[in-house]
């Protein structure tokens, strides 16, 4: 269970971006969150991924009440949520080759030995050719880089996935391919999904349930 209660969050105490948001997501469920740009969707996504500490409210993840965020969150909780960001260019360290980019979470959590095999398997699943793996982010297209970012998010087999406008920068075929990868992963593992976006058609077809920003925040 992923539960957000009365979350108020932002970057300036006097003017929070998110005010009193409530959200509940059951395991295996997929929820599409729609909203206009600038309303605070991404901030809420960061809170769900335990990357941003809310000023008020509680986040409960699989029965654990989360008390610390970002580095202060226990590693097991942090890695239980996989995140894919909107802009792959900014979400990829420009110095790492795609192979290292995908392997980074495995190495960071001390699973170095299985990295090589797992990277190959993930690359195949997201549709990254072997020749692309030895390239750096500036040598591949946005779509290819986003595939690598998705592979990175799946590397630790998270129980929850947060896709923050994952397909906003991509063309229709890449969008379809990435959504198929996410759905395939969810079918096999039963992971829950929070997909944030502003395209009702896409989210309506992708997610079991969609909700609008105005419905989760209190006035």
């Amino acid at each position, binding site marked *: 269970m992923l539960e957000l209660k009365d979350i108020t969050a932002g970057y300036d105490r006097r003017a929070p971006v998110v005010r009193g948001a409530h959200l509940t997501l059951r395991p295996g469920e997929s929820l599409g969150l729609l909203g206009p740009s600038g309303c605070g969707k991404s901030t809420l996504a960061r809170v769900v991924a335990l990357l941003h500490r809310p000023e008020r409210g509680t986040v409960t993840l699989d029965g654990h009440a989360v008390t610390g965020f970002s580095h202060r969150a226990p590693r097991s909780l*942090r*890695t239980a949520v*996989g*995140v894919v960001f909107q802009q792959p260019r900014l*979400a990829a*360290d420009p*110095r790492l080759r795609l192979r290292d980019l995908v392997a*980074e979470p495995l190495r*960071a959590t001390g699973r170095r030995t299985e990295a090589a095999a797992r990277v190959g398997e993930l690359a195949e699943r997201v549709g990254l050719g072997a020749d692309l793996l030895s390239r750096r982010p500036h040598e591949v297209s946005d779509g290819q880089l986003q595939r690598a970012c998705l592979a*990175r998010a799946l590397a630790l087999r998270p129980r929850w996935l947060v896709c923050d406008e994952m397909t906003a920068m991509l063309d229709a075929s890449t969008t379809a391919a990435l959504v198929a990868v996410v759905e395939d992963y969810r079918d096999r593992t039963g992971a829950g999904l929070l997909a944030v976006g502003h395209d009702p058609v896409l989210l309506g077809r992708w997610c079991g349930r969609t909700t609008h920003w105005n419905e989760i925040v209190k006035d």
Partner: protein
Amino acid sequence: MAETIWRPQGRARRSTRALRVRTSAAVLAVVVSAVLIVPPLAQLDQQAVDLAAKLQPPSWAHPFGTDDVGRDLLLRCVYGLRVSLLVGLVAALAATVIGTAVGAAAGALGGRTDRLAMRAVDTLSSVPHLLLGVFVVAVFRPGVWPVVASVAATHWLSTARIVRAEVLSLRGRPYIDAAVSGGASRWRVAVRHLVPGILPQAGLAAVLMIPHAMWHESALSFLGLGLPAHQASLGGLVQGGRGSLLAGHWWPTLFPGRLLIVPTLAVAGLAGAWRERRNPRRRSELTL
């Protein structure tokens, strides 16, 4: 009609840059090999006094002339440059390491650590750093290492500021979030993502620090606080030659002074070219 200013472009600009890089590299290579090779090979005593040949103008026997006790100035200058380069390199390296560590810690940890560290930096910067350097040297006996310590202790401040600013800008990038979400510890984020990101800036700061440190060493020596009088150093040579300047003996001050400027310009030329190369986007801003 708007006036057009001609500025070398395309191939012409690249060739002036190449010329600058080659000249700087050649000058630096000559200087460095001179200070490395001449002293062990020449087997000449830079302290050999010859009162009969005192204050001789430049000649074939003494290309830079002689000083007021008849010592060969070319040899003294090479030895002086050796000391200056050593102090410059070691002090710049030490200052960069300290500055990078403090700046990275302040930027990465943030909060109270950041505020404390940066206020300490502000406090130290508010004292004229030559004065602070004089204080450090005064505590110890004159020698190379106190000078290095004095220069290093006063020159890490700007590096700390540069590195902190760079870390702050990197810390907010989504790829750091992605790393945190992937289970990376603070240490791993710093070593894997932040440090490689700030190395170009820190490296440039370190390289530009070398001539600065050389000048600082010369200033200390000029004030009589650097090396002991018998050891040659460029600042000490200028100081020693100052007395005979009014009598029309220009060479004891001119040559050591020139030798201080030449490596400075060479290093600046190389550093500028490297910065342009590293960041083509900034090139247009730099050449405006």
